[in-house]
């Protein structure tokens, strides 16, 4: 193959592909290598994996991760779909409300984390105050220190942060539904709930499938909120998989064990990524 025969397109993408290879492919291969060697670089077989998996905290961490991801995605979708449908209705000030709704999405993750941590504060937090005033709870709860409330609190923060994204996508999906379709079902005698059930949700299905997969990937990558609010505590009750990788590597300096965890983590994620790409490719074709 001579230089002349190579499409100019290849030359255009080459620098970027090399850069990405250096930043992504090389580290991933290197992770794989680290995961089967020991600190001195000698081959260690599956030892790192065994140690990492047999650690007493593994079950709890897996449970936490599933809890956090499922909880986050469910509430993000629920809130986002409701908000999207709401913002598709006609009412005064709709444009303003649409912009305001984007605030959680726009605010930096760390700022959201800090602000909610302050709101969840046991003694001086506004949430405990409002809830005791309304009578939902009788006395202040240590939301972030109580092992039973820490995950729900963190899920609430994550749901708040991401629901505008779902709402925007749902809104876009709904706006692509021709107005005549609504008029047609109204002529056929449908009420608002029929409209949601028979027109909106079926039209949104492809959007929702890809959003769900995206939200899952993002929730699995959710270090920022949890690490900055609780650091995985109390007593590992909010420790999730990616934070464990960070902790192993940068707090215990167990790089090989962290690499083994990374490999497991990546294998699991790649299932979701492949699913997403298949859905995505199918949608591109339409």
């Amino acid at each position, binding site marked *: 193959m001579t230089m002349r025969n*190579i*499409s*100019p*397109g*290849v*030359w*255009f*993408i080459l*620098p*970027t*592909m090399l850069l*990405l290879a250096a*930043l*992504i492919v090389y*580290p991933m291969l290197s*992770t794989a290598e680290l995961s089967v060697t020991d600190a001195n670089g000698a081959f260690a077989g599956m030892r790192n994996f065994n140690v990492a998996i047999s650690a007493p905290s593994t079950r709890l961490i897996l449970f936490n991760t599933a809890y956090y991801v499922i909880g986050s995605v469910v509430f993000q979708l629920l809130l986002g779909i*409701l908000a999207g449908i*709401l913002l598709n209705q006609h*009412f005064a000030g709709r444009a303003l*409300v649409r*912009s*305001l*709704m*984007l*605030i959680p*999405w*726009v605010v*930096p993750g*760390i*700022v959201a984390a*800090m*602000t*909610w941590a302050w*709101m969840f504060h046991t*003694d*001086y937090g*506004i949430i405990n*105050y409002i809830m005791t*005033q309304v009578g939902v709870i009788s006395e202040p709860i240590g939301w972030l220190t109580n092992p039973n409330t820490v995950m729900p609190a963190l899920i609430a923060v994550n749901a*708040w942060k991401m629901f505008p*994204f779902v709402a*925007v*996508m749902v809104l*876009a999906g709904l706006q692509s539904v021709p107005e005549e379709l609504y008029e047609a079902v109204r002529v056929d005698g449908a009420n608002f709930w029929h409209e949601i059930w028979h027109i909106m949700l079926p039209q949104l299905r492809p959007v929702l499938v*890809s959003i769900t997969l995206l939200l899952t*990937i993002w929730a699995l*990558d959710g*270090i920022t909120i949890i690490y*900055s609010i609780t650091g995985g505590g109390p007593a590992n009750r909010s420790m999730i*998989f*990616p*934070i464990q*990788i*960070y902790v192993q*590597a*940068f707090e215990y300096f167990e790089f090989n064990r962290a*690499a083994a965890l*990374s490999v497991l*983590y990546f294998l699991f994620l790649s299932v979701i990524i492949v699913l997403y*790409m298949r859905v995505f490719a199918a949608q591109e074709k339409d």
Partner: protein
Amino acid sequence: MRDRRRTLLISLPVAILVIVAVFPFLWMAVSAFKPLAQLYTIPPQWLPDPPTLENFKNVVFQSNIPRYFINSLIISIGSTFLALVFAIFAAYGFARFDFRGRSAALAFVLIGQLLPTATVIVPLYIVLNYLGLINTYLGLILVYLILTLPLSVWMLTGYFRGIPKELEDAAIIDGASQLGVLFRISLPLVTPGIIAVTLYSFVATWNEFVFALSFATEKEMKTLPIGLAEFSTEFDTDWGAVMAASFVMTLPIALIFLVMQRMFVGGLMSGATKG
């Protein structure tokens, strides 16, 4: 009558939605302007009386936040710009040419965009350490390309595809070279895309936490998100300062958002739907 019922039916959920979305942000702003004594009261005080700039003074004069702010600015701008330069060529290549391996390469870019940061921090640390790039601007700028480059390529490819092929054919007939077509015809026409990509990359790097936490450990090199997290220690947190610093950190993002709201939402959508 029906209309009024409908208005009521919609107003209530809309009001709840607005409160849920806006309240934490407002509470942060309000807390930032409260003097120490009014932050820690039971029951909490709704509004600062009188508002004070004390917290901001602490943040600006007695903390490292100003330095972190500048670090964040340098790293975000550097990485955004670098990604843009590479992405312009790559996106053009993807949008305009058909070659063997094209879809595989595009899929790889998409994977890069989806790949969680935690999978690569360990080896990246080793590589950066080996190259002496831990705690340097260059180190973080390069690492942030993982966030900005795939996204920029992906978004710009969409914009370049939107340019009619005939325009480029016309330029070739007029005697332009391949690069001439890109710089004289296509690039000027994707200006909105360039702006959207720039904003998006800037925001993504400005907010980034995990890489900064792992690769910028020295005081001189830390970025704003890390600085913010530092305020809060297990035993003693100056919540007034944290809220003031949060306010400062949100400001550039809020400004960008206010000025370019339409573009931002458009970018969010194209960035999101396409991965």
